């Protein structure tokens, strides 16, 4: 499993790199437009270590942000599932806030929160939570009549029970989305670092861009890919274990 994900990633990365290099030699572009393999290897030697540490740093924040956004999405979806005014209001709020590009909202966030880990985490979570929210709202607002009928008609239905029933019946969809959104958490963190932090791989990318150093960016992307794959694999493993446990019940 681990094995597969990683070598699939390697194949993808190799394809991408191959394409770039083909372009380079095909169009005879100079080394400053697309770096030579030689330079990429050199950059990797020099920056591989520090970049790996940066990716780990980023990954740690991403995991936190991911958890935060799962909580956020659950809360919003549980309220947004309601057909009442408040539900539609919360949905409107969630959708509208999401419609704002983070770069436009970031200055306001910094004014309000200052520049600690908080802002970084909030930005990461905001980027990651919306895809979760969409699926969660979809899942939580669709009744499962054959199960819910009893609780409805005996007056036993509570919002918690309803959420539990719908979550349980849709556990596969939910795990798919949660696992998949891990990559969004990663992206969110990188973007947050890109605009705000002084650490993490997003910060390194920012500098590499500033230095117009595509070789560094390629190394960073490689390490991000590996890091993300590892995180995905662990989540997938956990998701499978959970589902297997539930099925074996």
């Amino acid at each position, binding site marked *: 499993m681990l094995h597969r994900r990683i070598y699939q990633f390697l194949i993808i990365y190799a394809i991408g790199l191959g394409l770039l290099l083909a372009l380079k030699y095909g169009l005879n572009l*100079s*080394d*400053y*437009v697309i770096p030579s393999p030689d330079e990429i290897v050199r950059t990797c030697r*020099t920056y591989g270590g*520090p970049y790996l540490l940066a990716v780990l740093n980023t990954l740690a924040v991403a995991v936190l942000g991911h958890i935060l956004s799962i909580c956020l999405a659950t809360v919003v979806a549980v309220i947004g599932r309601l057909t009442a005014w408040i539900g539609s209001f919360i949905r409107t709020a969630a959708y509208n806030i999401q419609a704002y590009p983070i*770069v436009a909202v*970031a*200055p306001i966030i*910094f*004014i309000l929160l*200052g*520049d600690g880990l908080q802002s970084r985490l909030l930005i990461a979570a905001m980027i990651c939570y919306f895809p979760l929210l969409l699926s969660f709202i979809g899942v939580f607002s669709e009744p499962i009549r054959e199960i819910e009928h009893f609780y409805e008609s005996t007056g036993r239905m509570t919002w918690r029970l309803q959420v539990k029933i719908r979550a349980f019946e849709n556990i596969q969809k939910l795990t798919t989305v949660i696992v998949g959104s891990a990559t969004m958490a990663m992206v969110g963190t990188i973007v947050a670092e890109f*605009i*705000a932090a*002084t650490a993490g791989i997003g*910060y*390194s990318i*920012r*500098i*590499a*861009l*500033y*230095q*117009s*150093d595509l070789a560094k960016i390629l190394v960073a992307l490689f390490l991000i890919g590996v890091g993300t794959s590892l995180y995905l694999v662990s989540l997938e493993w956990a998701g499978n274990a959970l589902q297997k446990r539930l099925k074996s019940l």
Partner: protein
Amino acid sequence: AQKEKLEEVNYRLKWLYNVSAVGDLYAETRGYFTRNGLKVNVKPGGPERDALKELELGHAHFGVASADQVLRAAAKGAPIVVLAQLFQVNPLHWIYRPDQTVFSGGEELKGKRIGVTFGGNDEAILRALLARYGIAESQVTLFSVRYDYTPFYEGRVDFWPLYLNAQAVIIAEKLEKAGETYAFLSPDRLGVRFVANSVVTTREMVEKRPETVKRFLTALLEGWRDALDPRNQDQAIQVLLDADRETPEAVVRKQLPVTRELMLPAARIEFGKIDAVAWKQTEAILRSQNLIPGSVDVESLLFTFK
């Protein structure tokens, strides 16, 4: 016991740790502030950071901001004052390839394709240049600049804006490696003197804590002077490398002299000198381009200890 007496202040830079902050870092790490009874947290800036806002919100006590930021804020009533001016010559230049782009004077901008960051201060500078040489916007092609240089690399744009002491060194090296020639267009030499980074604080600070301000400024300027002193070059480079692990030493070695050149263009100039004339020109440029709502009283903005 010594430490407890230190007064703690925050100092927000304009950009990430790089060569333009060498003196700030030098003063911090080599004890200049401590010797003056201060504990200064030198915090890196960034694209979404605005030292002026942090000053007002009380997150920072001192900061670095560009002159256009300062004037814009002052025009909107921000209670700030300028303590020192880091660059005597604005580091913002345009790179071009002399073998492809013939350029010897401002008039020759006509008909060229020029990269510009719309909304950035390079736009203001470029427009001032065009105005100065009587070139209408329709006579040049302005190219919206992003952070990657591909359009310039591919020769689709003649002039590309960059900072002479920072990116220019890196880009130049790449071009050199490819065996290409390059040169820089300096607005300053073409008569547009647009002030760059300055050290700022709030009016409240200079009025209520003049001693702190004085000690900060003294230490800072001293640190800068020593950092730029060729005799301290190796120490200065080491300080930078410690703070910014992303830039190779070879690059920093080239960046430092360029920075010195921009900050101390002539031997008799004192580091940090506030060039009131340049400030007034900057204000005039911003006003003529409607970038500030009204005029700003530059004199009262520029602060000097009597």
